[in-house]
């Protein structure tokens, strides 16, 4: 989220598309209701199903799963055509006027630089025309046909309302009404917020879905302002934290990236990170990358990281491919390329696409370790549970360790919420039986390996032997000590160059501005610097005061970066520093410095006249309508059909789906066609359940006891399916047998002239816990991911549905 949960109340229009906020985030959704009641906001829901969010919406429009880009490109076309954009904002704060290189082109569904063989792009043409100083050329009059705004106009010109309706199945009048509502927020003092979640990410074009809306928001001037922003409603309590701390294949803490094979040494690696400003006078904050990196290496390896050994650069693993993500991992398992797997609080058998593939992958491991408070399906993948988990135990040679962990109520620590708040929580009781914390278990594994390597030697033990472990209790480190390590300390007495203030060695740092690249500071996660200072644990702060009652409680817990609650908040004020919306200012220029209710996302004393752009992390300081090379599948978003789709791509029949979507050879044959699997399916969660956890909680099992699918009345009638009757839903990858919910809430959509039926598949059931046994939606879903992040395409695939009788085992 760029903004806070409470800030949603400042919106004039709330768009829920690519998510189902009321069901997945009810307590955050209260702020939408608050916006409606207190701010007269209109709630717009665009979703294949009439969801519980839609039940309180002012306007609902249906859409075929997987066609959001077509819809939103249509919105962009509408905004540009009706000139319903926030001109001053777009001119000053976006790259609309920058000139794109000759050589960039888009034709027949492909951007310039496509390599058919490798399914990838050479992205060198996706960039600005640079002048001799290395700055991007610009045309402030927007006359140049190659300036971004004109290329964008040209790019979206194909997305007429007719075309949108043809692709998305959304009736034209509904589409246009949504456009109108969105356009109403182009006024400088009006804001629209976009609330989305996995409904956008879980597509082969997931990142571009989000990017398209971000472009809409930039055009409307809604980024950085109160009640605006792009608000990804994250799913798990600390998934933001895990991403922040870099628990992903290619990440390091604080969004630094792990080196790859091409980064042969530290300097090569650094040369790809230290972004030079692309416009005069810009901040380009990543120029400080080296400070963050060296400080991190000092936290990780302590005294063993020295100038001489390039801060132990070689001790970090390097990647040979972009990502070892989950789909790749199971591909490797199935190919016999993996030996062991450790699942910490994670249930891949239920969570990953193509369940059969997941089960066979786990069966090929030598060992599997699960660490969880609950008896997960994954830890019992080898056990026969009938049709819901057919397994031949005797043939599965995997050793399985099921390790009991404590849960949230039984440990101290911090979690990062969707709005980037680090909130501390306290232990209320001990865990049951012999359950132990993840910290204790990971430490146990670490210490044993350390012992083994000390005793026996072995493959390159240096990083392991040198990783810092200076905790009061080395067998069970205190979370507070770990938090302090992430925050960072001065390693020697530091003198501030500007003020001359001295920070004593050993002192906890107040902010990442204090970090240095000479090994005199350490910080385990630079964006968290300031969370645990000499003043104490900032994450434990409990002052809910909300100056201006505008949804910012700056003294409640602590938000990264630098306790900033609204990202890009410089953009909430016009180029002169006056708030676009005087009724809801975030920060403003008082003549000498930036003041307001939030920490400025900007140099606090940088004058408006200096012309420094508000998007300080970008090299040009501007919001990008043209993404340059940041996206794998194009600098502008383009509609590609899901990998499994019932129709051709009417825009460019030769390029139906995302050309660079990664599909493994084994998986290619697992895609079904519309002839055998004529219906579009989409998966989702229900408000009564949280993934596969709450089926272990009796109350939630009572509230939603049994697996079902949602089918529209028209299709049900066609297929003779009765309310609450049994159906078999099948895809190329498997089938599930469950109850049918025949509903008015899913209506057939007319797509390219043909009726298209959508089937909803909630995902919560499995074969352990209190609820009734179920197959799991992932039995049906395809193993293909988003071209940029490899997030699996759970939200649009093909199935067939048939009436059936009750399973014998039920």
């Amino acid at each position: 989220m760029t903004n806070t949960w409470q800030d949603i109340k400042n919106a004039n229009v709330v768009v829920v598309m690519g998510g189902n906020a009321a069901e997945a985030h009810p307590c955050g959704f209260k702020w939408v209701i608050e916006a409606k009641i207190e701010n007269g906001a209109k709630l717009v829901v665009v979703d294949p199903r009439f969801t519980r969010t839609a039940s309180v919406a002012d306007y609902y429009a249906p859409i075929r799963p997987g066609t959001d880009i077509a819809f939103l490109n249509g919105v962009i076309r509408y905004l540009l055509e009706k000139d319903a954009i926030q001109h001053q904002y777009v001119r000053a704060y976006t790259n609309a006027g920058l000139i794109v290189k000759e050589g960039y082109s888009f034709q027949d569904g492909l951007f310039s630089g496509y390599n058919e063989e490798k399914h990838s792009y050479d992205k060198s043409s996706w960039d600005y025309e640079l002048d001799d100083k290395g700055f991007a050329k610009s045309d402030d009059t927007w006359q140049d046909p190659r300036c971004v705004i004109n290329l964008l106009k040209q790019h979206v010109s194909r997305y007429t309302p007719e075309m949108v309706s043809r692709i998305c199945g959304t009736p034209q009048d509904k589409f246009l009404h949504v456009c109108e509502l969105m356009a109403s927020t182009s006024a400088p003092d009006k804001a629209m917020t976009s609330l989305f979640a996995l409904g956008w990410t879980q597509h082969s074009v997931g990142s571009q879905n989000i990017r398209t809306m971000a472009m809409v928001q930039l055009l409307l001037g809604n980024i950085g302002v109160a009640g605006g922003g792009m608000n990804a409603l994250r799913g798990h309590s600390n998934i933001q934290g895990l991403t922040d701390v870099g628990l992903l294949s290619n990440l390091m803490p604080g969004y630094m990236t792990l080196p790859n094979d091409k980064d042969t040494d530290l300097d090569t690696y650094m040369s790809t990170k230290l972004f030079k400003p692309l416009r005069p006078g810009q901040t380009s904050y990543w120029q400080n990358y080296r400070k963050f990196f060296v400080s991190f290496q000092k936290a990780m390896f302590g005294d063993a990281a020295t100038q001489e050994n390039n801060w132990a650069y070689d001790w970090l693993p390097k990647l040979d491919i972009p990502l070892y993500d989950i789909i790749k991992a199971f591909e490797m398992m199935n190919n016999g390329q993996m030996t062991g797997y450790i699942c910490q609080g994670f249930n891949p058998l239920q969570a990953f696409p193509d369940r059969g593939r997941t089960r066979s992958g786990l069966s090929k491991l030598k060992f599997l370790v699960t660490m969880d408070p609950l008896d997960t399906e994954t830890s019992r993948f080898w056990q026969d549970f009938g049709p819901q988990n057919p397994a031949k135990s005797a043939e599965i040679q995997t050793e399985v360790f099921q390790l009991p962990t404590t849960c949230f109520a039984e440990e101290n620590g911090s979690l990062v919420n969707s709005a980037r708040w680090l909130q501390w929580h306290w232990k209320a009781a001990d865990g049951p039986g012999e359950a132990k914390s993840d910290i204790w278990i990971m430490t146990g594994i670490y210490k044993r390996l350390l012992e083994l390597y000390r005793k026996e030697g072995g493959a390159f033990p240096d990083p392991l032997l040198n990783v810092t472990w200076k905790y009061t209790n080395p067998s069970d480190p205190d979370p507070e000590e770990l938090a302090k390590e992430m925050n960072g300390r001065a390693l020697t007495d530091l003198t501030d160059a500007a003020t001359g203030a001295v920070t004593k060695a050993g002192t906890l740092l107040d902010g990442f501005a204090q970090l240095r690249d000479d090994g005199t500071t350490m910080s385990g996660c630079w964006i968290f610097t300031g969370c645990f200072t000499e003043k104490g644990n900032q994450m434990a702060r409990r002052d809910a005061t909300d100056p201006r009652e505008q949804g910012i409680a700056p003294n409640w817990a602590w938000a990264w970066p630098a306790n900033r609650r609204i990202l890009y908040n410089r953009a909430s004020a016009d180029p002169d520093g006056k708030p676009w919306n005087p009724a809801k200012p975030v920060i403003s220029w008082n003549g000498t410095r930036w003041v307001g209710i939030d920490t400025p996302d900007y140099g606090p004393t940088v004058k408006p006249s200096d012309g420094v752009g508000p998007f300080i992390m970008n090299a040009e300081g501007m919001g990008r309508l043209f993404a340059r090379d940041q996206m794998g599948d194009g600098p502008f978003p383009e509609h590609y059909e899901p990998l499994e789709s019932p129709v051709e791509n009417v825009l460019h029949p030769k390029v139906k789906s995302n050309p660079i979507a990664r599909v493994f050879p084994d998986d290619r044959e697992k895609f079904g066609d519309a002839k055998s699997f004529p219906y579009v399916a989409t998966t989702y969660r229900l408000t009564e359940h949280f993934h596969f956890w709450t089926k272990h909680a009796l109350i939630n099992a009572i509230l939603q006891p049994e697996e079902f699918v949602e089918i529209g009345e028209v299709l049900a009638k066609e297929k003779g399916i009765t309310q609450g009757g049994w159906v078999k839903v099948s895809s190329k990858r498997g089938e599930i047998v469950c109850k049918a919910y025949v509903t008015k809430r899913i209506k057939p959509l007319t797509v390219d002239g043909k009726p298209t039926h959508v089937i909803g598949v909630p995902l919560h059931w499995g074969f352990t816990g209190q609820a009734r046994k179920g197959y799991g939606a992932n039995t049906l879903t395809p193993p293909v991911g988003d071209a940029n992040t490899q997030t699996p395409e759970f939200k649009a695939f093909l199935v067939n549905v048939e009436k059936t009788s009750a399973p014998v085992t039920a």
Partner: protein
Amino acid sequence: MALTRREFIKFTGLGLAASSLGMLGFGAAGEAQAAAVRPFKLTHATETRNTCTYCSVACGLLIYSMGDRAKNARSNIIHIEGDPDHPVNRGTLCPKGAALLDVVHAPTRLKAPRYRPPGGTDFKEVSWDFALDRIARLMKDDRDKNFIARNAAGTTVNRWTTVGMLAASASSSETSYLTWKVVRSLGMVVFDNQARV
């Protein structure tokens, strides 16, 4: 930091409800009612501040447990409700959050390490030492066998691809940081979390 700011919170409905409650006259006059109704079960419970373990709204919680944390008694969580001071949830909870008690006390909570040997048909309980020793052994053997110190071009890559890790999405940042240290110091790259699913 335990400053109660309830009185500053204005929230449609809830704010109003809060202001009205004081006027209801249950304070001293409600003895009959107090005697007739079910005794209030939290009177002697210990209150602990926590954060909901499910989604990223991160609602503030009040966990009530029996026992005063004295050394000779084990606390037992008896009730969980929303923290009214929390600026986002203001005391509210969703159907998952309101039922957290049942996940804390789920009959399927694991209580001891269990092990299933190759080809086994059931788990058997084992000691922590057995489990962790065995896991460390298996990891080391594989790492020594499959660790890639240098790639074909001779670059030090310090990479181990045959054992992977999925990290928890509900564990604390402190846990994740420690996990990162262990995982990367071993050179593991097949490393992911639940951000995508």
